[in-house]
């Protein structure tokens, strides 16, 4: 008898598990027909979408009705398969995967190039490692945390695509599907009901809106982190909880609590421990933040007595802090170990502009509403589970859901602390919400509740996740411009961007160029002289000065995406960057080095008899490091 069956027989005071009987093959095939039809409709609906010319409301406004109908069929099909008696779990799994493909596969279908301009700096590191076969710790932080990049370089070599851009556009979908499998596995271990686990997977897809599953070390670290959590909760769980905590819960909710489930571990303890340590070592060398998130979660689970052995925590801490110690000077010099211990300060995001367009205000409002809805739903779910006597059994999920908030007591993570909290808590918030819904006894009410939550979250997700794609989707021409630059530009020069939105540091040669750390740095939009005014010939000298901060010679890049960024966030008036580009083109100090319809790169001519520029030469990489005032929502580390 499987553990899951045994648990059901033990009979927690929840609604009976649905779907113990399965439909036959013909019935299953029939139930899959709407899903197949939705998949076809989804793909056909994307044929005529022009992703290269989106408005300030992003992709949702450009998607046709057929796309929304297909998505609705997939989401409601998943809900039906999860809640109807007699539906096979495989059918539900198929619908959940279909939802993943529709949500995370839409952008790569529309655009062959990976979205997010900041993806390309990761591509550049992979290409650099491929070309050199070793790391250069002084180049940047990625060379000091090279796990993901080294593995991607192996993968690129193996598949024969030396440029990861060939496959990186699909990274969102690939990472999401792998994350989904791991989330389902973890929830299945804790809840011991496959349908609840699959439903948690569905909600995880719908709440994971922060855009961190792209081709990046954090997406990879997150995946390995989920695997680590899986082994911890399935193989190292004691099934125990502190009696005092149980008594306290019982007093608060005035309900007796069921004891914890018996442990499921079947591996030898040594094997499980080695596996956890190996995973942690891979995470530690791949991403800066993820190991700390894992450490806090494992520490809390250990302190509560639900995970043993104790010393595992010490080993994980030693690996994590030991690696940090080896790189401490670099971190202190370039970023700082702690930003603030004030959580209210650390949850503040980067302020891009004081007067964003209505589309961006709408995006932000929807994102805030989404955050509030998920957390309110989670709190209600915890209360409901406690009232049903399931608080002790849900303890691991509660710890995993709330422990990521610890980050805001030490770091703002470049203004992204809130996003990281959402990322790390969303699977477990989803699981708690779904589990609470599955405690509703009446089948129709249960189905209605899950459908309502799924539909509302789908709507919020589409706006939150796809609502900024007018800034994120890059055209092949823009990527070609970047490829040209890193192949042909003079080594030792600097590339200044007119605004964020250029695929920066895309080539293997990126360490040969000057400029500060950070996304889209240097760019003109961080300078007050270029903000909030019409631009033209008067600012050309300022462009040259900006270049000369870092090098005697350099380039300025104007692209379609940069212009969109500046105008959507209303940093410049409409047409300002076009006028500046025209002025640069007319200036004798610049020459056109590269041009295509979406991107133009101008080279600053070396000074001859002209007045010496006001130059402040700094070191090659960290010179004149500035804040990320005009850095879009996304990832720095």
């Amino acid at each position, binding site marked *: 008898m499987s553990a899951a069956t045994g648990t059901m027989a033990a009979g927690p005071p929840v609604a009976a598990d649905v779907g113990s009987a399965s439909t036959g093959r013909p019935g299953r095939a029939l139930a899959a027909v709407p899903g197949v039809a939705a998949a076809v409709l989804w793909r056909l609906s994307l044929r005529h979408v022009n992703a290269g010319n989106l408005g300030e409301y992003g992709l949702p406004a450009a998607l046709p009705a057929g796309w929304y109908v297909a998505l609705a069929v997939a989401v409601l099909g998943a809900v039906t398969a999860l809640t109807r008696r007699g539906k096979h779990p495989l059918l539900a799994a198929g619908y959940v995967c279909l939802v993943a493909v529709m949500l995370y596969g839409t952008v790569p279908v529309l655009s062959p190039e990976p979205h997010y301009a900041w993806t390309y700096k990761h591509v550049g590191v992979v290409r650099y490692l491929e070309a050199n076969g070793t790391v250069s710790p002084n180049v940047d932080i990625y060379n000091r945390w090279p796990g993901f990049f080294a593995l991607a370089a192996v993968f690129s070599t193996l*598949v024969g695509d030396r440029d990861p851009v060939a496959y990186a556009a699909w990274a969102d979908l690939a990472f999401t599907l792998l994350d989904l499998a791991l989330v389902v596995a973890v929830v299945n271990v804790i809840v011991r009901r496959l349908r609840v686990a699959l439903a948690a997977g569905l909600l995880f897809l719908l709440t994971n809106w922060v855009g961190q599953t792209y081709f990046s070390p954090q997406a990879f670290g997150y995946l390995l982190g989920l695997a680590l959590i899986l082994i911890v909760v399935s193989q190292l769980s004691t099934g125990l909880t502190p009696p005092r905590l149980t008594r306290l819960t019982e007093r608060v909710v005035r309900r007796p609590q069921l004891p914890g489930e018996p442990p499921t571990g079947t591996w030898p303890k040594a094997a499980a421990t080695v596996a956890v340590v190996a995973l942690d070592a891979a995470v530690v060398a791949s991403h800066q933040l993820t190991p700390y998130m894992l450490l806090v979660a494992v520490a809390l689970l250990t302190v509560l007595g639900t995970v043993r052995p104790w010393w595992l925590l010490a080993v994980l801490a030693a690996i994590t802090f030991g690696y940090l110690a080896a790189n401490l000077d670099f971190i202190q010099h370039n970023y700082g170990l702690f930003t603030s211990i004030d959580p209210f300060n650390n949850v503040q995001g980067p302020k891009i502009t004081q007067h964003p367009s209505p589309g961006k205000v709408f995006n932000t409002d929807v994102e805030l509403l989404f955050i509030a809805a998920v957390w309110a739903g989670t709190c209600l779910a915890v209360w409901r589970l406690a009232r049903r006597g399931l608080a002790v059994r849900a303890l691991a999920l509660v710890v995993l859901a709330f422990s990521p908030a610890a980050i805001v007591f030490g770091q703002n993570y470049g203004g992204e602390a809130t996003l990281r909290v959402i990322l790390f808590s969303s699977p477990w918030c989803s699981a708690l919400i779904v589990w609470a819904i599955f405690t509703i006894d009446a089948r129709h009410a249960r189905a209605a509740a899950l459908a309502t939550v799924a539909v509302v979250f789908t709507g919020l997700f589409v706006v939150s996740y796809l609502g900024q794609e007018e800034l994120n989707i890059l055209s092949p021409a823009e990527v070609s411009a970047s490829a040209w630059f890193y192949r042909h530009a003079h080594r030792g020069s600097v590339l200044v961007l007119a605004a964020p939105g250029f695929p920066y540091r895309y080539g293997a040669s990126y360490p040969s160029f000057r400029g500060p750390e950070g996304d889209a740095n240097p760019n003109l939009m961080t300078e007050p002289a270029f903000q909030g005014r019409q631009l033209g010939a008067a600012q050309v000298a300022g462009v040259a000065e900006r270049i000369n901060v870092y090098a005697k010679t350099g380039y300025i890049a104007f692209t379609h995406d940069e212009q969109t960024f500046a105008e959507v966030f209303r940093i410049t008036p409409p047409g300002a960057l076009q006028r500046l580009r025209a002025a640069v083109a007319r200036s004798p100090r610049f020459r056109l080095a590269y041009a295509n319809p979406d991107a133009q790169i101008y080279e600053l001519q070396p000074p001859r008899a002209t007045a010496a520029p006001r130059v402040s030469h700094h070191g090659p990489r960290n010179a004149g490091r500035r804040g990320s005032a005009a850095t879009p929502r996304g990832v720095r580390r």
Partner: protein
Amino acid sequence: MSTNRGPMPRRGVWDCALLALAALAAASVAVHAPGAVRVTAVLVAACLLPGGALLTLLPGGEAPQTLGYAVGLGLAVETLGALAMIWSGFWHPVAWSILLGGAASCLLATDLRRQLTATSTRAGR
């Protein structure tokens, strides 16, 4: 070595599927199959093959957990191997991949033979 193994047919099917996946990935690279096929085959093999092979040394579990373990263990081993190469400067990704894939296939083939032997022994009783 485990004694509490999953039922043979499922385990045997799992071994066969992973061996087939290894063959498909190797063939797609060798014949330079179209990009999407090659990338997908190698990606799925990279995610499942080494971890799936390691799981033959451990007691079985439910399907969702088995899939999760395979992904996690496999990627951890591959990452640590890639790190060792990149830190040492001994960069031989193709050789490393062949070594890893070969070792994984050996483990899977050994496990498959064990499962088949156990099945035939049971059938003979």
